[in-house]
């Protein structure tokens, strides 16, 4: 009877496509919205993805990674003195302006690394050498910077090209991969000393973060707790800082409400379209279902057939919808200007939502079938 149910479903091409379309549309809206949200959120903690270190030490008032409050340079030594800290290095991170070849300027995110260790350097250098960053007036730019800062040059920026940051020469010695930032500025890496002495206007306090690592046998969380307790500074593990950043954006921006609305609309539209179409499908098949009931099909079997039809439609629509979203995601990532991040939670969550929609849709049909009198078949 299961095969019969599927044949009844697939046989009506138009209705079948309508049902699939409803679920596909709902899946696209939900998965796309959620991936957009996760993509945007991932942009907010891009520095944490680019600089993968155990512990970030910051001003105690810092809540998220893009809003650093400068520290005194001496805080590096205070952190280093905490028991369980194996190493601690300074990091500068801030927005600046790069002067382009056509005379205009562009926003950049400048990252200053400890020149002796280069801890916090981008993990993937696609051209050039990381060590060359120790040469005078040198920077490593990310691939996005190649695109953004090439205006007026007539060709893409490359190794050996020179541009200006704060009226100081910046010679490119490497190109790296990096995750996009929320502000949209490409990442430019240089040494900490050069960043604070040349590329950024002088201020009393210039240190953005202290990056630290634990001694053997000490977990990053333990070390962060010790730093907080002994120095009064803020200290986060990478995960803690990421969630702190995400929640800050959730609390302080309209992003979750806007994207949440998209996801909710997708769910409501999907439920409405699928429920209504499936119910119409059941109504149109009522006479056939009545005939099956008259011929001796029990209600449980009919309900099972409806659930099977509904789940089949749901899973196919889900698969198609997710495929479309994955394709859109690939395009978005290729273009690089649209936030998109599909973690495993999104397909899993959308699958749950689709299963809920299917259950609801089949429930509508089941209620109808359960009350269906087999004598309906004798009425003309």
């Amino acid at each position, binding site marked *: *009877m299961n*095969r*019969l149910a599927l*044949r*009844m*479903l*697939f*046989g*009506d091409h138009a209705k079948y496509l309508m049902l699939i379309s409803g679920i596909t549309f709902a899946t696209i809206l939900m998965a796309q919205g959620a991936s957009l949200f996760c993509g945007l959120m991932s942009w907010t903690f891009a520095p944490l993805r680019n600089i993968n270190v155990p512990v970030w030490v910051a001003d105690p008032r810092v809540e998220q990674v893009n809003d650093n409050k400068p520290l005194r340079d001496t805080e590096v030594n205070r952190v280093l003195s905490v028991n369980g800290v194996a190493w601690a290095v300074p990091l500068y991170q801030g927005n600046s302006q790069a002067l382009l070849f056509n005379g205009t300027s562009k926003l950049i995110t400048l990252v200053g690394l400890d020149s002796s260790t280069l801890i916090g350097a981008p993990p993937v250098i696609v051209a050039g050498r990381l060590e060359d960053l120790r040469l005078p007036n040198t920077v490593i730019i990310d691939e996005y910077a190649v695109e953004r800062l090439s205006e007026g040059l007539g060709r893409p920026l490359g190794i050996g090209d020179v541009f200006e940051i704060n009226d100081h020469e910046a010679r490119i010695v490497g190109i790296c991969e990096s995750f996009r930032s929320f502000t949209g500025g490409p990442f430019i890496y240089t040494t900490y000393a050069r960043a604070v002495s040349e590329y950024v206007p002088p201020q009393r306090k210039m240190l953005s973060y202290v990056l630290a690592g634990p001694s053997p046998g000490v977990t990053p969380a333990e070390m962060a707790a010790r730093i907080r307790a002994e120095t009064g500074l803020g200290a986060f593990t990478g995960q803690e800082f990421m969630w702190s950043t995400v929640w800050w954006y959730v609390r302080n921006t309209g992003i979750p409400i806007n994207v949440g609305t998209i996801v909710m609309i997708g769910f409501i539209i999907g439920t409405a379209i699928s429920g209504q179409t499936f119910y119409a499908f059941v109504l149109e098949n009522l*006479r*056939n279902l*009545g*005939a*099956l*009931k*008259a*011929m*001796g*099909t*029990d*209600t449980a*079997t009919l309900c099972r057939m409806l659930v099977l039809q509904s789940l089949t439609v749901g899973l196919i629509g889900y698969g198609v919808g997710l495929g479309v979203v994955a394709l859109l995601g690939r395009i978005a990532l290729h273009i690089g200007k649209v936030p998109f991040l599909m973690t495993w939670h999104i397909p899993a969550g959308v699958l749950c939502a689709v299963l809920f929609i299917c259950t609801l849709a089949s429930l509508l049909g089941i209620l109808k079938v359960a009350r269906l*009198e*087999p*004598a309906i*078949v*004798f*009425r*003309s």
Partner: protein
Amino acid sequence: MPPYPPPDQPLPAPVALRLAGIDKAFGPPEARTVALRQTDFDARLGEIMMLVGPSGCGKTTLLSILAGTLAADAGDINVLGYRLGAMSQSALTRFRRRHIGFIFQQFNLIPTLSVWENVAVPLLIQGASRGDAQSQACALLASVGLGGREYERPGRLSGGQQQRVAIARALVHRPPLLVCDEPTSALDSHSGQQVMDLIGTFARDPLRTVIVVTHDPRIYRYADRMSEMEDGRITRVLATPADIAAAHPLN
């Protein structure tokens, strides 16, 4: 599947079914429509019993009750030795699955299934394998003159051919009771004739009872006996084909 229980109140041969004192009304108490009033009806093994009468006289209601698809308000219903009134819904479903073949006025073929799949439905409901069901269905389709059309959709067949598919479906599981609701009313005269020929020859079996509800006088001559209904009651039973011919001379 558990063994099917034996009849709880066997009827004396050759009686196949007996309905006594059946009442049935529809609608709310303040606007009740009485369909059957103290109706008695019986049919025998091996015969084609026709139930005739004007529209709205209660024929289809009576047919629905004796087929176990509609509950009576009152009365005793004994079909093939089983007291339907005492059965639960699930027992009634099993009873219909095993004992009854249906032929409907509007054929009620499932349009998205192929012809052979439609015929195989009663076997599939009984749990037969798809292969067995297919071979039995195709063999029966060949018998009713539809060999070679097994894989077509019902929508591609004429009305007469569709009703032949419905006949094959009604007989494929060899039911002892065949109920036919206006089997020719949606067909032209020639197709109706062919369908009744098929029912008259193919469905006739000494161990099978065929009940035909109709108000089509063109097919009265196929009946062995005839019960006439009016206003929810059986008004007359014509006991032989000769009596039927005499009462309805046009046929």
